[in-house]
């Protein structure tokens, strides 16, 4: 097990290197540069000075090695469009917002999703099951930015119960709309997995045995059915969390939450190379870590699984 974890962590290094290389090459292959201005183009000598300042006048291979060695020394460079700001400063100040928002949304999605899936499975093929299943398909089928907008119209504009947007930390009512919008999709996914997995577990002989020896219903569900039924859910939950955190920029832009997603989108349009690289590496690291955590969690949840 330890060997497996060590090997997987070592594998992260070449993976990150490949992510870096592909992003770097694609970025520089994309026509257009950071100093393009539509209406009032910068004078040629200004562009040359800027290129020299940021090392963009060097050959591509030199730029690659300088960039790489800077990153290995923990320096992600300065943003081109936000003058004087380090990429690491941008990430440190805005990523926690996305992370908090994503974590709360994931928690909500897990609690409601497992609950909904369990209700469906225990009331199999009844009206409650159909209602919950329908609700989860609707949840999967509505893009989160549409959900966020509808919630803002109803609860902020017509009813006036909630603020229309902004950010005041986790314990503020400004959280409610973005959290629901982000949580709905993963919640529906988790509910579907929970439902089919619990239904599958309930068919097993040991559940019948537990019934036969007179176990209390809620005990049986929580200790036997749910515990085994949640193993596949753990897999989707890990990946869903990575998706929530890395894909939150739609909701962030609709609800005016100052997260990191906004920087990624504007940096692509503005060819802000250091910010693109910094955010891509950050998000790739999250995806890889979540995949690793899921694999490790599997061993603890299911003793039959062993890694060599």
């Amino acid at each position, binding site marked *: 097990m330890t060997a497996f974890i060590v090997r997987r962590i070592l594998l992260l290094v070449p*993976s990150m290197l490949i992510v870096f290389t592909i992003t770097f090459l694609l970025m520089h292959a994309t026509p257009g540069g950071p100093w393009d201005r539509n209406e009032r183009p910068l004078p040629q000598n200004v562009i040359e000075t800027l290129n020299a300042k940021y090392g963009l006048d060097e050959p591509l291979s030199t730029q690659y090695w300088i960039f790489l060695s800077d990153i290995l020394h923990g320096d992600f460079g300065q943003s081109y469009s936000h003058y004087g700001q380090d990429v690491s400063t941008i990430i440190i100040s805005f990523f926690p917002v996305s992370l908090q928002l994503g974590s709360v949304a994931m928690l909500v999605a897990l609690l409601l999703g497992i609950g909904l899936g369990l209700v469906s499975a225990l009331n199999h093929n009844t009206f409650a099951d159909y209602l919950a299943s329908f609700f989860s398909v609707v949840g999967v089928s509505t893009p989160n930015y*549409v959900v966020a*907008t*509808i919630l803002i119209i109803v609860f902020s504009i017509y009813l006036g119960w909630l603020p229309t947007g902004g950010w005041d930390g986790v314990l503020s009512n400004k959280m409610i709309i973005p959290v629901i919008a982000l949580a709905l999709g993963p919640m529906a996914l988790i509910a579907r997995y929970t439902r089919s997995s619990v239904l599958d577990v309930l068919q097993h002989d040991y559940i019948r045995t537990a019934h036969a020896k007179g176990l209390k219903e809620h005990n049986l569900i929580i200790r036997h059915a749910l515990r085994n039924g949640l193993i596949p859910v753990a897999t989707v939950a890990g990946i869903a969390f990575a998706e929530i955190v890395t894909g939150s920029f739609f909701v962030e832009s609709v609800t005016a939450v100052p997260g990191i997603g906004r920087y*990624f989108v504007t940096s692509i349009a503005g060819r802000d190379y250091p910010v693109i690289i910094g955010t891509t590496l950050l998000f790739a690291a*999250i995806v890889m870590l979540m995949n690793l955590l899921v694999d490790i969690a599997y061993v603890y949840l299911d003793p039959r699984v062993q890694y060599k």
Partner: protein
Amino acid sequence: MSISIHASSTSESLPQASFTAAPSRSLWQDAGRRLWRNKAAVASLCFIVALVAIALLAPWIAPYPYDKVDFDAITEPPSPAHWLGTDSLGRDVLSRLMYGARVSLSVSIVAQIVILLIGVPIGLISAYYGGWVDTLIQRAIDILYAFPSLLFIIVVVTYLKAVLKSGTDPVMMSLSSINQATGGLMGIFIALALVFWLTVSRLVRGQVLSLKAKEFIEAAYAVGVPNHRVILRHILPNTLAPIIIAATFAIPIAITLEAGLSFLGLGVVPPVPSWGMMIAEGITNIRSYPHLLLASGTVLSLTLLAFNFLGDGLRDAFDPSARL
């Protein structure tokens, strides 16, 4: 199963034979019957067929051209002249939604074909030949999986859009004209394909690995069927059902992604309408003109709903034990 032919013809004289008298049906006929009994799936299928028809017939049945600007009728609410109202340039929303269906459906179908063309052969080769080929392909897929897919798609689409716009050599010029003809969708097709073939090839690999161990494949070898025939005639047809199901579930993801990219301004080139772009416009004008978001958001959600229900229906039809 073949005994049933005799059984049904002689069932009057031999009543006990009716136990084996189930009519002979293939997996596909069986699945078709089960799908037909699933009302949500049938309704979804009808919806999708209607949508395809609307998309194909849009130039003839749309009440107005999608780019017809009418400055005397800007952001009008629904009326008899404009059933779903007009947008901020006085263009008919219903007509634009009809043409927008072309974008969403072509993204889902063309991208899906490209995905299958890449993913299926790679999955087949990886599983069938095994050994170092398999190891190499699987490690590469592992690394590609680590890419945050949405970010990767955005980077690739930005790259392709810029390259296609500024291409000067003949190959680029011809690609660029195809891109023009599809309203700037080529970048999205390619980007989606680059990300989603991974899932398909994993699925195919898993299927082939389990099929390879089955007796009928061994039997095929034993009677001297050559390699390529085993793959094409015996293995590939048996992986079709899971591939179709996966493709049905991948379509709504592709439609959502196109809508998301158009929402960010990376999708189709205006004035070609796309649902995502219409949603973005609806969100901007939500306080004054809610009908814009209501129309585009509802159509998008209904379409995604239909594909998801159809996917569920197909999965249950091909694997009845999955739903229990």
